[in-house]
């Protein structure tokens, strides 16, 4: 199925979780947050199984401000 990861279409297996997508995005182990369909997905719910067309943002802190 297809999801949108950080703005890019991504082909993933059915049953893929948010946590698996975080790994796929190349995120560091800490300092990461996930938004699923425009709302924060707390780390405690990263086991959530994604559905076709889900929009996932994986963010971390960088130099700025």
């Amino acid at each position, binding site marked *: 199925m297809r999801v949108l990861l950080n703005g890019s279409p991504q082909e993933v297996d059915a049953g893929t979780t948010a946590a698996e997508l975080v790994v796929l995005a190349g995120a560091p182990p800490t*300092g990461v*947050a996930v938004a699923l369909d425009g709302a*924060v997905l707390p780390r405690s719910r990263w086991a959530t199984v994604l559905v076709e067309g889900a929009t996932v943002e*994986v963010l971390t802190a*960088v*130099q700025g*401000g």
Partner: protein
Amino acid sequence: MGTGGATNLAVLERALVASGTELTTVAMRRVDAGGGTGVLGLLERLGIAVLPNTAGCRGAAEAVLTAQLAREALGTSWIKLEVVADERTLLPDVVELVDAAERLVDDGFTVLPYTSDDPVVARRLEDAGCAAVMPLGSPIGTGLGIRNPHNLEMIVAAAGVPVILDAGIGTASDAVLAMELGCDAVLLATAVTRATDPERMARAMRAAVEAGFDARHAGRIPQRFWAQASSPVRDFWTQDTSNPSQADS
């Protein structure tokens, strides 16, 4: 001090240490953006607290979600709230800013808003429950200093929360002026990180903030139009013209 603009982490580390800062800003970006993810490790090692910002956000909804993501990622409810109107000026969109501030305060955040130097907007932000107000001296990254010192004085005079000058500082004298005008702190990045010698400029800024703070609280003299001698005005030695030997000397 902010972390933006440093060419590499080693330069940033030396500047942060020289500045003496205990709190520094970071931005939230997509992990594939290649934005140097080592900054968190550096700040942890230096024992400097992290203040995430909402830089780049253009509307209240975007800023609120970014703040919530920052809280989730970094475990802090402190947020430097930025909602800018356009890329050319990077000036705050104060309508969206006040809206976002109200929503974030309701959501339990400690909100530190980057705002214009408008005393009325500063008051609205304080009324919204912001923990401080952070007016600009001039637009972000311009180094133009404090373009409207009187506005800043009015903000300071009316504020019941700390006032932090945020943006526009170019050199140490700008930081001194901000503190002399009554600001509680300054927040700066570009002036240090893009200086030829960031570590040395960071040291200058630290000294400037301390100097301005002391000058503000030391009770400066009133300004006067005519000179006022600092040496005693009595008991002058006066030349005795009747004594030839003295007159010749």
